[in-house]
């Protein structure tokens, strides 16, 4: 018995208290909002609880894996991910007009999900390998490592995911010390190629952007989601309509309201006060992540922690921006808030890595 309890204490000692508290607060809010948005459907709530339990388990598992082991997984995961992306491009299943899924018989799998973690791991491991001798060449290699999956996913086509993965890669390069000159030059290049990129976008992608600029142009079609979600948020006012009292929510006006548009339900029922609290929680989470990064003993840990933190906030920003009508509609869930197992597990895996970096300080590099 004492040995078992000792083992448990050791495992628990790798959890970061601050992160855990913030995450549990967010998950608590999420549970309440998903309950309200699903009309307090027992199936949805149970499903959400199961997802949360599973995700917490995954978080705990990864918190206990030392960073150097994680770093080793970078290359194989990356290679496997890119191979799967190629497989998708060749044999993938087409759903809703894009080739994103790989049918493994029992489950359909999106390899692009894997890359969300594999790419930062790969790049962080790569930079750590060449920490002492970082030169322009290494940034160039890293850029290629970034561009390969980026282009493969973009061609599926899945603009949203490719941009998110591109962002995570860019954050990593940025924290790894990508020279400002290169950043400025790259930015100029991207800006210059925007018109060209616009023409390369698919019709529905262009429409999404246009819809953002003028949702009223097609109120029952593409604009419907944005119009209804902004109505929900706006009608929430300062303090909201109260839990389960959002009319836009309860009467089905908000689409996808337990998943991608959960923020509209939250904004309607809890108002500006709720939004401020939510954004503050995300900021606190990022702050904690950056602190962990600053204190991390290895380059791998620093890069992973900083990238994961910024990435997490990017997801939150893109989702809330989309739901409140400042960004085009892209299928990105709101971290910790949206219902959905895969996204939550991936996210908590990232939190687990953050905790691992935070609690494995004595285990120095190499």
């Amino acid at each position, binding site marked *: 018995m004492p040995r078992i309890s000792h083992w448990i204490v050791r495992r628990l000692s790798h959890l970061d208290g601050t992160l855990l508290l913030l995450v549990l607060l967010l998950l608590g809010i999420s549970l309440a909002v998903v309950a309200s948005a699903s009309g307090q459907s027992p199936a949805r709530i149970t499903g959400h609880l199961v997802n949360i339990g599973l995700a917490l388990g995954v978080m705990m598992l990864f918190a206990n894996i030392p960073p150097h082991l994680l770093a080793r997984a970078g290359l194989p995961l990356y290679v496997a991910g890119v191979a799967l992306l190629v497989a998708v491009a060749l044999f993938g299943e087409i759903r809703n007009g894009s080739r994103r899924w790989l049918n493994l018989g029992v489950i359909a799998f999106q390899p692009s999900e894997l890359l969300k973690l594999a790419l930062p791991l790969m790049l962080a491991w790569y930079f750590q390998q060449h920490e002492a001798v970082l030169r322009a060449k290494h940034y160039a290699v890293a850029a290629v490592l970034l561009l390969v999956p980026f282009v493969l996913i973009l061609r599926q086509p899945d603009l949203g995911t490719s941009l998110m993965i591109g962002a995570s890669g860019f954050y990593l390069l940025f924290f790894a010390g990508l020279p400002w000159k290169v950043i400025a030059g790259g930015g100029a290049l991207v800006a210059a190629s925007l018109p060209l990129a616009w023409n390369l976008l698919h019709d529905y992608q262009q429409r999404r952007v246009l819809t953002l600029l003028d949702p009223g142009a097609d109120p029952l079609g593409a604009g419907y989601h944005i119009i209804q979600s902004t109505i929900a948020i706006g009608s929430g*006012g300062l303090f909201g309509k109260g839990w389960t009292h959002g009319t836009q929510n309860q009467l089905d006006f908000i689409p996808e309201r337990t998943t991608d548009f959960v923020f509209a339900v939250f904004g309607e029922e809890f108002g500006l006060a709720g939004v401020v609290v939510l954004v503050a929680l995300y900021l606190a989470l990022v702050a904690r992540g950056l602190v962990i990064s600053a204190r991390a003993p290895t380059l791998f840990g620093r890069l992973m922690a900083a990238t994961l933190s910024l990435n997490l906030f990017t997801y939150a920003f893109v989702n809330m921006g989309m739901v409140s009508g*400042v960004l085009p509609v892209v299928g990105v869930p709101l971290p910790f808030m949206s219902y959905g197992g895969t996204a939550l597990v991936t996210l908590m895996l990232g939190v687990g890595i953050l905790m691992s970096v935070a609690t494995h300080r004595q285990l120095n590099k190499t």
Partner: protein
Amino acid sequence: MKAVAPLKDLDRELARFHARLKIGAAFVVVLAGVLLGRAYHLQVVQHEFFTQRAESNRISLVPVAPNRGLILDRKGRILAENYSAYTLEITRAQVADLDATLAEIGKLIEITPGQLRRFRRLLSESHEFETVPLKSRLSDEEVAIIAAHRYRLPGVEVKARLFRNYQAGPGMAHVVGFIGRINDRDLKRLREQNIEHNYRGSVHIGKTGLEQSYETLLHGRTGFDQMETDASGRAVRMLSRIPPVPGKDLRLHLDLDLQAVAEQAFGDYLGGLVALDPRTGGVLALVSKPGFDPNLFVDGIDPETWKALNESPERPMVNRVLRGIYPPGSTIKPLMALAGLELGLRKPADSIVDPGYYSLPGSSHQFRDWKRGGHGVVDLRRSISQSCDVYYYRLAVDMGIDRMHDFLEQFGLGQKTGIDLEGESAGLLPSRDWKKRRWNKPWYPGETVIAGIGQGYHLTTPLQLATMTAMLANGGRHVEPRLVEALRDPLTAHWQPVPGAVRGQVAIKPENLAVVREGMLDVTRPGGTAARAAAGAPYSIAGKTGTAQVVGIRQGARYDEKRLAREHRDHALFIAYAPAENPTIVVAVMVENGGSGSGTAAPIARAVFDYYLTGKRPGAVNLETGNATD
């Protein structure tokens, strides 16, 4: 090597990394600011706007159509009532393949070709999103069959609707009128009157008759249920209700029995009859033959039937009492006589010798009397009872068209009577002014001559004749004809009388009127033109016969009824009131192609008087036995 050399570098790298972390943190704070700014804009700045949008999303007003008022005769018998029935309705926008759907329905329940034609016509007149009835009055079995197959028939619904039943039949169609589906024209009018909202739950609107003229009262006020609805438009719960206010019930002066007697009295003839109470203007009977079945129109008439009704030479859709305009002929003579007396042009005893024609001074043209050889010595009373034309040719010339016009105008000729039905004709009361305005031609003396016997430009409706007669009967009080006697609010069940409208009182010397009325009484006495029709009546009738020419008779030729095709025969007219001493009923009859007023029109009036004054129902009236006198 790795352990020593990069140590210094590592510190610098670390410092650089920390700087980048700060930049990353700043970036995150900026993004958070954008989000909060957006939330502030939506939730504080535009809060009111979005609250309204959310409310209009949430709340929908479901109109609740009021019950339409009933129409009853004076004895409370129902002329128009509501019933609810199941109808099969189709919304075009929700049907992918209309023909296939119709074929499918046709396999389930019987759909007649007429119903299909009607459906196609209604469809062509409505918008895609409107529901259009295919078949109404479904049996319970048909409802069950459709309900069982509904899942295969998107856009097809069975709905409970309120309908109107006109059980009094074709005879009352011209009075009661009918309701029909609200069409674009109706909608436009409702919009102009700014009462469109009151029809949001209504399918029907009054199209003709009382249904049209009392539309606002009959319809009532539409109620609204404030429903909370979800995004798919399903009602979740009722928030509040403004109950509908049912329409008012109408009770008429008209007696259905009297109406039936009058209609029957026409036999095979077509024409119009109106009976008024001269004291109130109340319409006791109003017959326009032929009638039509108003029930055909309630859920849309099929094009074939509509065409047949409209193109029938008998013109069943025209209300002859209101819109049939005919020269008044001799029925104008009592009024002319009164004018002569009132204007001091004649005294009752003034006599003329009628040689059978009249010529204007200096002209050889002969205006003939209807009686060859003339009436001999004729005074005022005799001029009425014998209907002497020459007496009135002379009187008219002495009076002149202008004075004639002004006098007759006081009795409502040339104006709408103001009856509570729409679409009546004003007829035509000629004058010098009118001719100048209308034709830009001078008035000729010869025109005055024939105007004196109600020919020429004169045009009157049977209703105008009845109103004019009522004024002779009641001493010159100009009452407007009224169908509706009282209104009932269904909520209080309290009848509220509708007062008659009096336009004014014509100043007439009682002794002058008495002479004219005596002359009219003579008409039904032995020797008078309508003596036979009045024979044996236990009350006294004062009247005047008349004919309205359908074809012109050449100078020197003779009107020979037997040689004319029936449709070229004159229209027979008769105006009368009874009892002559204290009149309670006035009748004006117009029998199309009836030949003579005495022969066909007067017996019809007699049947009406008999029933109204004695309760006696007529036996078989033989209309062809009367003498062809006028």
